[in-house]
């Protein structure tokens, strides 16, 4: 059921109410998505003059190109690194903050601040700290024997992108873990304490298992975040380099579409990505459905 039992009776008004949203959705969401589907079946020259139907050739071309396969791998490695590191750190911090009483709010205030910081700004700040020319951290690393240069060393670049994205993302994970922990009844944890469980044991045996729905939800949200919202971080920090070490799928769509002007290839990549998003969101809906009352 989508609506209420008691309703207003009016024939034209509901259409009027929905029209702004439906028009914008059709214009800026459905139409471009259909365009991407169509474009993915054509090859167009860079000036948009000629257009040849090539069927699934763009997909074959993309999937048989080693660099594109590498972009898929990079995207997943990136998402996996950001998701696991932020979830582990956020879980640890929220476990610590959950039990400190009033001061928890002070810690929370500081830890959630990066949520407000733009991914691009996070990119700029870490770029500054690790810049081989001026960066304090790049300088400091010399004393432990690391000659930091993310413009040359692929491993450094990948690490830096993960670091900047994770720094920004811990806030989100922290909030959900903290909220999850606060909804666990005190009585459960107390009874474990009476039975002699240590603070660590209480978390390990009771709190963590009860948080598994939150963990699943966060895993999906972190993957979506890393896939789609970290473009500014990559664009600012590494431009996909060095030697494509940080070129993710979204970055490739941008580069092939707007720098390479390969609209067909870029559209095919968009469609591949869209299929991925739709399956992830479907997975998420199945989870959300259990909590949502229609």
């Amino acid at each position: 059921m989508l609506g209420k039992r008691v309703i207003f009776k009016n024939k034209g008004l509901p259409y009027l109410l929905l029209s702004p949203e439906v028009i914008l959705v059709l214009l800026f969401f459905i139409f471009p998505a259909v365009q991407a589907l169509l474009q993915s079946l054509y090859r167009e020259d860079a000036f948009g003059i000629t257009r040849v139907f090539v069927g699934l050739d763009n997909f074959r071309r993309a999937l048989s190109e080693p660099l594109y396969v590498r972009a898929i791998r990079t995207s997943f490695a990136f998402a996996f690194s950001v998701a696991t590191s932020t979830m582990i750190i956020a879980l640890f911090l929220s476990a610590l903050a959950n039990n400190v009483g009033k001061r928890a709010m002070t810690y929370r205030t500081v830890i959630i601040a990066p949520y407000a910081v733009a991914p691009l700004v996070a990119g700029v700040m870490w770029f500054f700290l690790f810049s081989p020319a001026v960066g304090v951290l790049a300088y400091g690393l010399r004393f432990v024997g690391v000659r930091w240069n993310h413009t040359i060393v692929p491993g450094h670049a990948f690490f830096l992108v993960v670091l900047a994205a994770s720094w920004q993302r811990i806030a989100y994970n922290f909030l959900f873990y903290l909220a999850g922990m606060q909804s666990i009844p005190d009585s459960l944890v107390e009874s474990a304490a009476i039975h002699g469980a240590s603070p660590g044991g209480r978390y390990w045996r009771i709190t963590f298992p009860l948080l598994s729905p939150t963990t699943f939800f966060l895993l999906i949200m972190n993957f979506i975040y890393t896939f789609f919202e970290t473009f500014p971080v990559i664009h600012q920090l590494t431009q996909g380099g060095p030697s494509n070490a940080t070129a993710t799928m979204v970055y490739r769509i941008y580069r092939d579409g707007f720098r390479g002007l390969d609209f067909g290839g870029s559209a095919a990549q968009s469609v591949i990505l869209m299929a991925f998003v739709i399956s992830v969101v479907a997975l998420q809906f199945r989870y959300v459905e259990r909590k949502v009352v229609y």
Partner: protein
Amino acid sequence: MIADPVRTRVFRHTFLVLGCLVVVFPIYMTFVASTLRLEQIFQRPMPFLPGREFLRNYYQALFVGGRGLGGARAIGALVMVQNSAIMAVGITVSKIIISLLSSFGIVFFRFPGRPIAFWLVLFTLMLPVEVRIVPTYQLVSNMGLLNSYPGLILPLAVSATATFLFRQYFMTIPDELIEAAKVDGAGPMRFFRSILIPMARTPIATLVVIQFVYGWNQYLWPLLATTERRFWTLMIGLSRMLATADHQADWHIVMAITIIAMVPTIIIVLSMQKQFVKGLTDPEK
């Protein structure tokens, strides 16, 4: 709550303080750099305490600008602040109004095509701007809306999140309230204005925070939709100013603009922390 032994308490606070320091460190160093002279930033290592150039750097950042690509002078950040604000407020206001109207229509009326409309909106949730970026760009370009505020705002002006949140909220409103309004002779729009909107203050406040942050922090779309400097947002200006070799950048000015770019959203998120956290982690209430 269970009292901790002292050792556990020390452990807790040590790591929490450490975590907070890691979070604050980049912001602090950015602020420090924004108060130094350029040659101080190039010292090895750079000073760790704020310098004396705060007023001069921020004045230059806001009204004069630093060196941009190829040494050309970029515009002052005041214009960028204005553009970021117009874009963020435009996106926030249109998302909230459009979503309020459509979820009102979906929840309180019956009409053919209602489920289709609802699922159509939810489907948009599946299409982040990144996957439809090339056709959207071509469309906006054909409409002649590149380098304009409508072009910046319209493609981002609908929100499945907001529609979904308002619908969830409207579903919890008791039927008696609608009946009472009808008995008193209130039409649907009167009910919407005088009862529904005042009641929906909490979800509206939550969405103001979330969507303002979203709009202010946008990057990929304004990067493509603005080529003229006078439409640059803070994010675009920053990235354009850094599109130069990093030993040539005007770091003191760039760092001042970086601080200017994050202060508004940090203030909004922290000052409305309660509504924001509740709305984000508990969307069913």
